C-alpha cells in the first residue's frame, strides 16, 4: 500500500496522471449527465403518489450521495495528512471541501423544493435533515479553519482534526432514517435486497448518480492540480525573493 502511495501521491506523477485522466472523466460526465437528464425529464414515468414532482429525486439524491462522498474524501485525506504527513493529502482535503459543501447545499435546497409540495413544509428538524445541515456546517468550519491561521500548516492541521472528528456524522446521516422516526423516508436504494423503486425510475437515478460522481472526480482532479500549482508558485516566489535579497 505504501509503495502505491509513494508512486501516485508524488505531486509530479499525480499531475501527469490527472492530466491524462481528466479528458476521459469529463467526457463520461457529459455523456452520463446528458443521457441521465433525457431519461429524468422526458423518458421516465411520473410517480403513483408524487406525480411529476418525483423528478426532483434525480438531482436531489445524487447530490446527497456526493455530499457524503466529498466529506469522506476530506476525512480520508485528513487522516493521511495527519498520520503520514503526505504533501498531497492536505491539498486533496483543501480541494475537496468546497465541492462537497456545494453538493450539501444543493442537497438541502433541492430537498426543500421537494419537501414543500410533498410533505407540506420547506424544512423539518428531523434527524435526517438536521444531520445533513450539520454536514454543511462541518464543511464551512473546515474551509474556515484552513484559512484561519497565518501559518498554513497549522490551519491544515486544525482543519484535518475537525474533518476527522466530524466524520462520526456520516454514519449518523446514513442511518438516521432507520434509527429514529423521521419525516424523511428511508432509503430506496440499498445494497441489500431489491431497491423499492421502479426500473424505469432507477435508470435515470443511476445515470445521474454515476454522472455526478464522474463530475466530482473531474472537478476534484482539476482543483488538486490547481492546489499543486499554487504550492509551486508560493515556493518559487519565496526563492525569487531570496535571490533578490542577496
Amino acid at each position, binding site marked *: 500500500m505504501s509503495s502505491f502511495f509513494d508512486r501516485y501521491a508524488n505531486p509530479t506523477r499525480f499531475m501527469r496522471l490527472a492530466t491524462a485522466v481528466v479528458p476521459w472523466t469529463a467526457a463520461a460526465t457529459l455523456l452520463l449527465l446528458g443521457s441521465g437528464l433525457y431519461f429524468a*425529464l422526458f423518458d421516465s414515468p*411520473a410517480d403513483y403518489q408524487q*406525480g*411529476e*414532482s418525483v*423528478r*426532483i429525486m434525480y*438531482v*436531489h439524491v445524487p*447530490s446527497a450521495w456526493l455530499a457524503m462522498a466529498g466529506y469522506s474524501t476530506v476525512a480520508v485525506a485528513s487522516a493521511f495528512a495527519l498520520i503520514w504527513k503526505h504533501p498531497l493529502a492536505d491539498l486533496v482535503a483543501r480541494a475537496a471541501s468546497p*465541492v462537497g459543501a*456545494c453538493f450539501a*447545499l*444543493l442537497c438541502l*435546497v*433541492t430537498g426543500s*423544493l*421537494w419537501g*414543500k*409540495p410533498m410533505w407540506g413544509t420547506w424544512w423539518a428538524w428531523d434527524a435526517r435533515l438536521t444531520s445533513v445541515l450539520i454536514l454543511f456546517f462541518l464543511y464551512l468550519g473546515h474551509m474556515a479553519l484552513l484559512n484561519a491561521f497565518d501559518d498554513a500548516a497549522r490551519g491544515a492541521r486544525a482543519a484535518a482534526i475537525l474533518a476527522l472528528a466530524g466524520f462520526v456524522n456520516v454514519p449518523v446521516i446514513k442511518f438516521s432514517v432507520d434509527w429514529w422516526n423521521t419525516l424523511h423516508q428511508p432509503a430506496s436504494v440499498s445494497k441489500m435486497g431489491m431497491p423499492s423503486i421502479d426500473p424505469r425510475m432507477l435508470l435515470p437515478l443511476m445515470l445521474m448518480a454515476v454522472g455526478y460522481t464522474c*463530475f466530482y472526480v*473531474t*472537478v476534484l482532479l*482539476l*482543483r488538486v*492540480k*490547481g492546489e499543486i*500549482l*499554487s504550492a*509551486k*508558485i508560493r515556493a*518559487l*516566489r519565496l526563492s*525569487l525573493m531570496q*535571490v533578490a535579497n542577496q
Partner: protein
Amino acid sequence: MNNYFSMGGYAAFVWPAYALSALVMIGLAVTAWWNLRVRERDLAKLRDQLP
C-alpha cells in the same frame, strides 16, 4: 408542450431544483478550470523571471 413544462402543477419546484443544480455545478467546473489556467500562466511567468 405547455403541458410538459407545467410538470403536473409542480413546475415551481421541479425547474428551480434543476436550474440551481445546473448553475452550481457549471460554476464549480468553470472556476476549477479557470483557476488552473490562471495558475499555469502565473507559474510560466515566474519561471521566466528565474535567473
